[in-house]
C-alpha cells in the first residue's frame, strides 16, 4: 500500500512551470530598484530549484516521514540518547507567538515574560547541577563542551597558567576529545578498569601540572555511576586541574546527586535528552553549561539578569535584562541568545515535574534499565555486573563467536520486530557493544515485549538475522560504496540509477 511516488526525489517530481508559493502583484509603487544593481551583481536566472505544486510537496514529505522510526511511533532504546516521550504541551506552548515570533534583537523592556522564564531556567539548571554560573548559549551538548573548555582555558590564562592537556576517558563520547582539540587543547586518554570505571592508576599517571581539565561522564557511558568519584575529585583538584562533567547522562541522577556536589567544576546539559526537548531527527538540541562561581565571569554573554525596581504605586518588581560581556568573558560561541525554542521546552518540562517529580523521573529511568537488564542478562552477556543506572551495555561477542551474530545483526533484526535498535559499537571499551536505554516513559509491557524479541532473535538462524531487516523498504545499504564513490547531491545522472 506504500505510495510508490513518495521515494522519488523532489527533483524527479519537478515539472517546469509548476508552482506552489506565490506572491504576485506588489502592493507598493514599483520603483525601478532593480536597475540600480548593475549587471555584475545579478544572475540571469534564479537557482534551478525544483518546481512543484503544494500538493506535491505535502504528499512527498508526509510520505517520507513514514519511513522513519521515532519516539512517537516506536520504542527507541538508543543508548546515550535518552529517547523519552516528547510532551505535546511543550510543542504547543513553545509555538505561541510570544515565544516563537520574538526577534533576537528586540529590546528587553518588551520581553519581560520570556526573560523571566529564561532567568528562572538558569536558576533551575543551577539548582539541579549544584553549580551556580549558567550560560544558556551553547547550541548542543558538544557545543557546551567546547564552550566550557574555552571557559577553562580563559580561567587558566587568567591565573597565568598554560596548562594544555585535557584528559578524556576511553569510554567517553567522541565529542569530548573533539571539543578539546577545537578548544586548542591536547588530549590524552584515561583507561577504564575491568569494572568499567576510571582506572585510577592510569588517571594518576596522566595527571600532571600540564593537565587543565579532566572530562568525566558520570554515570558513564556504560551506565555505571563511578563510585570512586570522591577519590577522583581529590586527585584532579590536588593536581590543580578542573573536572568537567559530560551531562549527557543526567537522566540517571536528577535530585539523586549533583555534579557540583560530587566535584564537577563545569558541565553541560543536553536538554533535548534529559528535559524532553525532541531530537528533531538529529537536532536541534541545546547545551547550556553550569560552572562554579569562580568561573562564572568567563562565561559568554549575554546572561539573563534581573534587578528590583519600585513601581509607581510603591510596589517592588523585578526587571529582567541581558548582560553585556564582562572583560573576562570568552566572547560568543554563536549568534544571538541561544536555542531559545529548546530552552522553553526544557522550562515547561521542569515546571511539569517540579523538584519531587524530577527525582522520580530518574528513579523510574533507573528502575526500567535495571529491569530490562534483569531480563536481558539471561541470554546476552552484560560485562559490567547486574546493576546499572539509566542504561546498560550488553555484549554480543559470545553470540558472534557462537552463531556469527554481531551487534549489528541484532540491531538490524530488532527493527523487524517493531523496535528501534539500541546503540551499537559504543562505548568502544565493550566488544560488540549493545547499549540499551529504555527511559522512564515506556511501559513494563513494552520492556517485556522488547526483551522477548531480543531473546527470540538470539534463537534465530544466524544467516537469516544477518540478512535482516526483512520488513523495511530497504535493507543493509552499501556504506562502503557510498563513501568510496560519494554521490552527495542529485544531478540528472545520479537519478539514472534510481531503481527504487
Amino acid at each position, binding site marked *: 500500500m506504500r505510495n510508490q511516488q513518495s521515494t522519488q526525489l523532489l527533483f524527479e517530481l519537478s515539472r517546469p512551470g509548476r508552482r506552489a508559493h506565490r506572491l504576485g502583484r506588489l502592493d507598493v509603487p514599483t520603483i525601478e530598484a532593480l536597475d540600480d544593481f548593475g549587471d555584475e551583481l545579478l544572475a540571469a536566472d534564479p537557482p534551478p530549484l525544483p518546481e512543484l505544486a503544494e500538493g506535491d510537496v505535502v504528499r512527498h514529505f508526509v510520505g517520507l516521514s513514514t519511513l522513519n522510526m521515532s519516539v512517537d511511533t516506536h520504542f527507541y532504546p538508543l543508548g546515550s540518547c535518552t529517547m523519552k516521550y516528547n510532551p505535546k504541551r511543550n510543542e504547543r506552548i513553545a509555538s505561541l507567538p510570544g515565544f516563537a515570533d520574538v*526577534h533576537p534583537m528586540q529590546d528587553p523592556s518588551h520581553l519581560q515574560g520570556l526573560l523571566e522564564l529564561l532567568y528562572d531556567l538558569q536558576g533551575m539548571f543551577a539548582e539541579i547541577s549544584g553549580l551556580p554560573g549558567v550560560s544558556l548559549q551553547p*547550541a548542543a551538548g558538544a557545543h557546551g563542551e567546547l564552550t566550557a573548555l574555552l571557559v577553562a582555558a580563559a580561567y587558566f590564562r587568567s591565573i597565568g597558567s598554560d596548562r594544555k592537556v585535557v584528559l578524556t576517558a576511553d569510554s567517553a563520547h567522541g565529542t569530548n576529545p573533539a571539543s578539546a582539540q577545537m578548544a*586548542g587543547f591536547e588530549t590524552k586518554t584515561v583507561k577504564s578498569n575491568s569494572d568499567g570505571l576510571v582506572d585510577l592508576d592510569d588517571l594518576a599517571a596522566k595527571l600532571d601540572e600540564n593537565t587543565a581539565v579532566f572530562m568525566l561522564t558520570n554515570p558513564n557511558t556504560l551506565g555505571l555511576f563511578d563510585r570512586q568519584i570522591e577519590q577522583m575529585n581529590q586527585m584532579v583538584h590536588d593536581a590543580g586541574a578542573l573536572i568537567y562533567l559530560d551531562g549527557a547522562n543526567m537522566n540517571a541522577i536528577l535530585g539523586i546527586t549533583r555534579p557540583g556536589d560530587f566535584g564537577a567544576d563545569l558541565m553541560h546539559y543536553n536538554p533535548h535528552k534529559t528535559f524532553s526537548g525532541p531530537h528533531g531527527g538529529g537536532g536541534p538540541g541545546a547545551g547550556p553549561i553550569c560552572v562554579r562561581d569562580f568561573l562564572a565571569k568567563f562565561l559568554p554573554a549575554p546572561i539573563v539578569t534581573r534587578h528590583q525596581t519600585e513601581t509607581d504605586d510603591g510596589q517592588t518588581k523585578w526587571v529582567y535584562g541581558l548582560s553585556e560581556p564582562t572583560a573576562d568573558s570568552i566572547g560568543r560561541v554563536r549568534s544571538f541568545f541561544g536555542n531559545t525554542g529548546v530552552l522553553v521546552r526544557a522550562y515547561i518540562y521542569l515546571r511539569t515535574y517540579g523538584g519531587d517529580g524530577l527525582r522520580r523521573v530518574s528513579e523510574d529511568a533507573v528502575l526500567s534499565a535495571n529491569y530490562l537488564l534483569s531480563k536481558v542478562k539471561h541470554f546476552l552477556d552484560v560485562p559490567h555486573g547486574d546493576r546499572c543506572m539509566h542504561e546498560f551495555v550488553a555484549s554480543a561477542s559470545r553470540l558472534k563467536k557462537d552463531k556469527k551474530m554481531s551487534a549489528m545483526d541484532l540491531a538490524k533484526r530488532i527493527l523487524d520486530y517493531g523496535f528501534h535498535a539500541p546503540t551499537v559499537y559504543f562505548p568502544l571499551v565493550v566488544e560488540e557493544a549493545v547499549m540499551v536505554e529504555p527511559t522512564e516513559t515506556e511501559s513494563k509491557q513494552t520492556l517485556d515485549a522488547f526483551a522477548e524479541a531480543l531473546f527470540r532473535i538470539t534463537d534465530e538462524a544466524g544467516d537469516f538475522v544477518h540478512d535482516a531487516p526483512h520488513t523495511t523498504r530497504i535493507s543493509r545499504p552499501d556504506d562502503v560504496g557510498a563513501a568510496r564513490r560519494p554521490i552527495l547531491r542529485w544531478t540528472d545522472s545520479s537519478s539514472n540509477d534510481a531503481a527504487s
Partner: protein
Amino acid sequence: MAYLFHTDDDRREMLQSIGAASIDEIIDAQVPQSVQFQRQLDLPPAMNEMELTAELTRLAARNANANTHVCFLGGGAYDHFIPAAVDEIASRGEYYTSYTPYQAEVSQGNLQVMFEYETLVTQLTGLGVSNASLYDGGSAATEAVLMALATQRGRMRVVTSDVVHPQYREILASYLRNIDAELVVIASDENGRSGGLIDALDDKTACVLIQHPNFVGGLEDVAAISAAAKAVGALTIQSFDPLSLGRLRRPGDMGVDIAIAEGQCLGNPLAFGGPYLGIMACRDELVRRLPGRIAGQTTDRRGKRCWVLTLQTREQHIRRDKATSNICSNQTLLALRATVYLSLLGPHGLRETTDHCIAKTAYAKQTIIAIERLEVVSDGPSLKEFVVRDRAGDVADLLEHARNHGVLAGIDLNPLLGRYTEGSFTGLPERYRDCFLVAVTEKRSRAEIEQWARTLSQAPQTAAC
C-alpha cells in the same frame, strides 16, 4: 505523575525481577552516600497541563513579537512569511521525535530529506557539496574559517572586514583565541564596502571572510575579492543571504570556495535567536574537511537506491580528536523546514521573494526621505536592509517611541560601535553612530511600511538636531 508509566504494582513486579527490595537499594549500591543529595530539589512545584498552559500564555503575552508589532528588525534574523505547509510537515512526530539516522533502514525519511536539503543548497549556492546543517550562521562562519585553516596548513591569517556581522566576528575571535591563528579585521570604506581587504591579503592568508550583502546592507564585489584571494592562494568564504539569491549571483558563480549562511529565513521562526540553521557548502575538492553530517546516495543489498550517512571518517564519533569538528546533534529539523520551504518556493517563488524585498525596501527608503530628522545612510541599492541615521542623535528614544506604537522600527547600532573581543575588533565603525538598521521583508505590506514611516516621523524629539 506527568509522563511516568509505572504504577506501584509495576514497580513492585519490576523490583522483584531485579531482585532488589527498593529503588533506593539499587541507587545506594552505586552512588556513594556521601555524594547523594540530601534534600529535595528546590524547583517551583509541579503544575498540571491546564495551569501551565495558562501560566505560560501569560508569560508569552508579555513579549512584543512579530505578531503584536510590525517588525523591521533584521541583522541576521528576519520576519519572512512561513507557509502553513512548513509547520504542518515539521510537526509530524516521525520527523521531530526521531534522531540522527544511525539505522538507515528506519531513517530513510530523514536521510532522503537530508540529501534533498544538500542538493537544494548546492543549487542555491552553485557549489558542489553541502553538509546536513550546522548550529547557525554565526558558528558556521567560524567552522568555515577553521576548515580553511585546516586545508591551508602553514597559513595563519584570517582576513575579514568590519561590516561582517559583529556577532560572527565575536565568535571567530573566541574560537581563534586558543589556536594559532591571527584575525585581521580591515576597515570598510565610507560606503560600507570591503574592497579594501584585497590589500591585506598575503601569502600567509588562509582565507578571507566576507558577507554579501553585508551587515549594513552593502553589496560587496565578491568576484573581485575572490579573484584576489585566489591569486595569493587563499580561500574565499562568503556569508550569504539565501533569500537574496532570487536575484543576486550565486557564491559558487563568483569564485567563492566556502559559502555559509544563516538559514533562519528559510521557513524557520524567529524564536529569539534559535534554534536556527547553519548552512555550509563548499567546492567538491574540500569535502573531506567539511564539518558535520553528510547524507549520500547508495544502494541496498537488493540494489535499491537509498541514502546513508557517509564520509563519517571526518566525524567525532569515528575520529575523536582528529575530527573536522566536534558537532554531533545538529539542526536537522530546521533543515527539513528549509527543504520544505524551498520546495514550495521553487525558482520563481524565490525570485518573487527577492524582488518583493527589493521593491519594498526601496519604497521604505522613499517614505522617509521627507522626514527631516532621518537620513538614509546606505547609498546605492539595497536588498532588504539599510541604515538610517537619526540626526537628532536619539536613536534609543526614537525606537522606544516606535515600540510603544506597535512598531519594531530597527536595530540600534550604537551599542555595536567600537567593540573588541579577545583583542580583535568586533564592533562597527564609528560611521554608524546614531544609526539604526532597518530590514524590510516581502511580508511587510505597504500599509505597514507607511505606518513605520509615520511612527518615526511622529516621535517626540528630546535632543536638538
